[in-house]
């Protein structure tokens, strides 16, 4: 049912229309507004504005990346950036609070990197040089703050309950102190409140100071405004001889907000600890041709390095000796290992699988993997974090509250009040402007969301995920390793002879090529070859290095080990005395075996689809064909359908060519496939997709890391590399694709929860501020109302977010 074209409300029986304006409207008002919108002249593009945009990209100087501890909101970014550029020698800076990183362009002659870091370690922030190997550890909040503050807070409340609240009820206080007694009591309260405010509340006050310096209000400023004005008001009242002191408000606000943040950080740290140490993908040592170990940093261009099977190539270079299959999935995203021969380029970061090779290091001695890391850091630090909802609210709230307070002061003066009276009215408005509920609203809801995600095995690294994920318009999914399992398995088999698989496996056992492993695994999982089959069951029952699982059925073919030769494209050797060849069709042709038409056709089809055909033949002809491919995950179709729910576009990105991605393009919910992307290409694709709206990216390999950072939301499927986990906003730790749609529902639920909490907190304000402005408030009422709204927020955050699967 469509609604009014402008305001979406229900259309009446005869909607308002006009020839000059397209659409149907619920009333003439909406029609006129729509007409005005059409008429408004197009925005004039300001050429000066375009120039201003690329500050960091254009600045001249050396670039360094820093890890900065202590950034927690968009205001901190503004503050650090302006602090950095205020220094001579620093040309430009970009900070991102979501990733705790900063990119600084500086003059190498004037400053060293440690000096730059020093200059930026101000106002409680700590900047250090960023390195790949250390994982970002969230600073552990000191419990001392909270415990000390809690103790004094309790003392304050005890004094209040005993002495001050009863007076507002009309009861006589428990103990009559007289004039001296009042001062004695209140100065104790003042002392307790000072400790809580300036010791426990120091981070809040620091955040408020940063906010004022940066000219950008945030939640800290709002909270500090209320706490400090309560404190000042109460100190003034103590001196002036009254009993209406609001130390309880100061203490309550500081403790509640600090406790809420502490709780949220604790939940996040617990979730992040679920990310077991995924080994770093960077290579520190290399081996020279003679076998000596050298540090990678000491290698000069032209040096020859030996890389053995199972090891990672340290630097980009050209192959000079040896032929091997190199698994470059981590770096390029191609699922099938590539054969590298002398003369071919070998990519730094690829894993050599079956034979040793010697490479000559290239001209600039870099590693493609390092370049990816550099790209990742550049993307991460240049994208500012999202301004959180609570901070946006604070930006609106702070000026409004200050304005209302000023008005209240003015009105009191105008209607004949004393200046102290007017000041006190203004301070009262400031006092009630931030209930603890406002400070609790976000941390509690976010903590609930993080915990719920962790139950599903999803680690939420960046809480702004909850605010941006529900707004996603486009979902980009990497193919290899995300939609597919990333491992080579036999997907089809076509045999003339039942023994084909056993013979093939018997020979393939001698090769460590991933395709060979797949054949051996297939053989061990079930005896006779089948055309269909449950790949998962087969995979599950076999050791991945091709070792024979104990208890496999059938007789083991006898192989004369000495006579087996492992070629780049297959294995040749005698099985049961017959010369058997298994591998690429060309290998069989070279060995003089006939390949019947149907095998040849099937093999051609497989190659066209981006898979690898493995033929096995003996006694002069080919007798079996196995198609080995990167197998799609069983649930990928359902997951894609669930993800595209709600009008989202689903786009598949892959480094493989179009043929390999064809089966994915056929799915009705996949809108587009970008194939053949080079390693940097994914970032460019994401940037282009961002023109359509908000983009979420799902990926797994190291080559996905920059794209994960470039997207508005990055979700990493844990697969053994730490790089994508660092780049992403959420990590699915058990390596499955299926939980991802739940994450979307969870994020929407958490965002709704944050908004509900904020509305409850604001309702308190709606009642309390007018009362304060009219001079009708007293500490008891303020405390009761604050307690009520905080309780509501706590209870609301405790509700179940999303039903358990």
């Amino acid at each position, binding site marked *: 049912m469509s609604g009014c074209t402008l*305001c979406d409300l229900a259309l009446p029986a005869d909607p308002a229309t006009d020839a000059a304006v397209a659409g149907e409207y619920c009333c003439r008002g909406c029609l006129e507004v729509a007409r005005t919108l059409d008429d408004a002249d197009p925005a004039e593009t300001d050429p000066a504005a375009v120039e201003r945009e690329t500050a960091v990209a254009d600045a001249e100087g050396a670039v360094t990346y820093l890890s900065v501890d202590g950034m927690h909101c968009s205001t901190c970014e503004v503050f650090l950036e302006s602090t950095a550029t205020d220094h001579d020698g620093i040309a430009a800076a970009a900070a991102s609070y979501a990733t705790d990183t900063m990119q600084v362009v500086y003059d190498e002659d004037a400053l060293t990197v440690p000096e730059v870091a020093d200059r930026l370690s101000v106002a409680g922030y700590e900047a250090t040089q960023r390195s790949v190997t250390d994982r970002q550890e969230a600073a552990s909040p000191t419990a001392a703050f909270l415990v000390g503050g809690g103790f004094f807070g309790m003392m304050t409340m005890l004094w209040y309950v005993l002495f001050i609240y009863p007076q507002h009820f009309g009861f006589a206080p428990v103990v009559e102190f007289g004039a001296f007694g009042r001062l004695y009591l209140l100065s104790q309260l003042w002392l307790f409140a000072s400790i809580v405010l300036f010791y426990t509340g120091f981070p809040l006050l620091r955040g408020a100071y940063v906010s004022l310096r940066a000219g950008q209000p945030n939640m800290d400023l709002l909270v500090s405004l209320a706490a400090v004005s309560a404190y000042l008001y109460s100190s003034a009242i103590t001196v002036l001889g009254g009993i209406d002191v609001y130390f309880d408000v100061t203490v309550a606000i500081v403790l509640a907000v600090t406790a809420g943040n502490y709780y949220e950080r604790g939940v996040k740290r617990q979730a992040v600890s679920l990310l077991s140490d995924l080994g770093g993908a960077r290579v520190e040592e290399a081996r020279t041709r003679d076998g000596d170990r050298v540090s990678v940093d000491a290698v000069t261009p032209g040096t020859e390095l030996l890389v053995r099977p199972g090891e990672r190539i340290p630097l980009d270079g050209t192959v000079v000796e040896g032929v091997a299959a190199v698994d470059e999935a981590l770096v390029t995203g191609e699922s099938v290992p590539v054969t590298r021969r002398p003369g071919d380029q070998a990519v730094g970061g690829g894993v050599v699988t079956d034979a040793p090779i010697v490479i000559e290091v290239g001209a600039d001695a870099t590693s493609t993997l390092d370049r990816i890391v550099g790209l990742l850091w550049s993307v991460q630090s240049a994208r500012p974090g999202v301004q959180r909802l609570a901070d946006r609210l604070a930006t609106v709230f702070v000026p409004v509250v200050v304005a209302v307070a000023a008005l209240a002061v003015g009105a009191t003066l105008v209607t004949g009040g004393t200046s102290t009276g007017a000041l006190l009215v203004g301070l009262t408005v400031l006092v009630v402007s931030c209930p603890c509920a406002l400070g609790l609203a976000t941390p509690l809801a976010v903590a609930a969301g993080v915990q719920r995600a962790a139950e599903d095995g999803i680690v939420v690294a960046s809480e702004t995920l909850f605010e941006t994920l529900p707004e996603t318009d486009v979902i980009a999914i990497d193919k290899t390793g995300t939609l597919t399992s990333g491992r080579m398995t036999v997907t089809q088999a076509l045999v003339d002879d039942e023994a084909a698989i056993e013979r093939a496996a018997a020979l393939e056992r001698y090769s460590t090529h991933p395709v060979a492993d797949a054949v051996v695994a297939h053989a061990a999982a079930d005896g006779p070859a089948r055309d269909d089959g449950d790949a998962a069951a087969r995979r599950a029952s076999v050791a991945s290095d091709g070792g024979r699982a104990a208890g496999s059925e059938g007789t083991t073919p006898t192989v004369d080990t000495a006579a087996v030769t492992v070629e780049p494209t297959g294995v040749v050797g005698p099985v049961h005395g017959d010369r058997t060849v298994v591998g690429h069709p060309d290998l069989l042709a070279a060995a003089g075996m006939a390949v019947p038409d149907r095998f040849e056709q099937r093999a051609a089809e497989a190659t066209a689809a981006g898979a690898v055909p493995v033929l096995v033949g003996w006694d002069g002809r080919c007798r079996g064909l196995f198609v080995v491919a990167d197998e799609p995950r069983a649930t990928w179709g359902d997951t894609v359908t669930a993800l595209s729910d709600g009008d989202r576009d689903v786009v598949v990105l892959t480094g493989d060519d179009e043929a390999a991605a064809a089966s994915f393009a056929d799915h009705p919910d996949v809108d587009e496939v970008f194939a053949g992307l080079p390693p940097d290409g994914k970032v460019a694709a994401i940037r282009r997709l961002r023109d359509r709206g908000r983009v979420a990216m799902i990926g797994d390999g190291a080559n996905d890391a920059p794209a994960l950072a470039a997207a508005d939301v990055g979700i990493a499927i844990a697969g053994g590399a730490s790089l994508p986990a660092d780049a992403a906003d959420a990590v699915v730790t058990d390596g499955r694709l299926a939980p991802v749609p739940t994450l979307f529902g969870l994020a929407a639920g958490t965002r709704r929860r944050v908004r509900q909490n904020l509305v409850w907190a604001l309702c308190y304000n709606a009642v309390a501020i007018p009362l304060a402005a009219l001079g009708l408030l007293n500490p008891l009422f303020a405390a009761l109302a604050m307690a009520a709204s905080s309780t509501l927020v706590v209870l609301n955050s405790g509700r179940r977010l999303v039903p358990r699967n």
Partner: protein
Amino acid sequence: MWPSTVAVDTLGRDADLLLFFVIGILAGAHCLGMCGPLVSTYAERLTADRDQRRRDRITVADVRQHGLFNLGRTAGYAAVGGMLGLVGGLVVEATAITPVASAIRGSVGVVAGLLIVAVGIGYLLRGTTVTGGLTGLPLVGRGFRLVTGVLTARVDRLVGSPKIVGLGAVHALLPCPILYPAYLYALVVGDPLRGALVLGVLGLGTIPALLVYGLAIGSLSVGHRTTLHRAMGVAFVALGYLPLAHGLMLFGVALPYPNVPFYQPL
């Protein structure tokens, strides 16, 4: 007939102010739906030449501009309300000397009251705006088009400066199905000050919703807005009751009636 405590007296005296404020608060949601896109366009132009990286952020300057816009809107409503009150007052005075003065005033009150109550019932039942004669006044529509045409041609130059107040004031001429019953009431009240005051209070009531939702939280869902429209309908029914009861009183039908100024029979 009303229990006479201080609170009720205050309430009675300013019942219409209170009702207008409540209507304003509830109408905030409506304004969001109808004027929201227009305000978003202004906001977009405001941030168009900002740093690409930070375009999504709101700053204190944004808040100031939005604040000025809303104050301009309120001032515009108050001005129109005052004018209509003046016109209404003039009509009342012009007919004061005729023998049927009381009947005229009575019937005007009854008709206006019934119209406003009808609008309120329409909101209550449909949860959305009502079409029909009320909102189809061609003259005002054209007036709005003329003025906004002049302004929107200069939107870019206006949104960044304090002149955005002018853009806000123009919204008072918008054929808005909430403003029309309010303007009718101002006409019936017959006093420019009161007319300006009630419309000003209405405008003030819409500000919190627009500021908070527009700047911070984003749009309201259709479901929420429909509910708020129904609640607003109730407030309109209560509001329409005032001139209706007063008009009936002038015809000699006595109904329970709060102590609203300017309605006291002489």
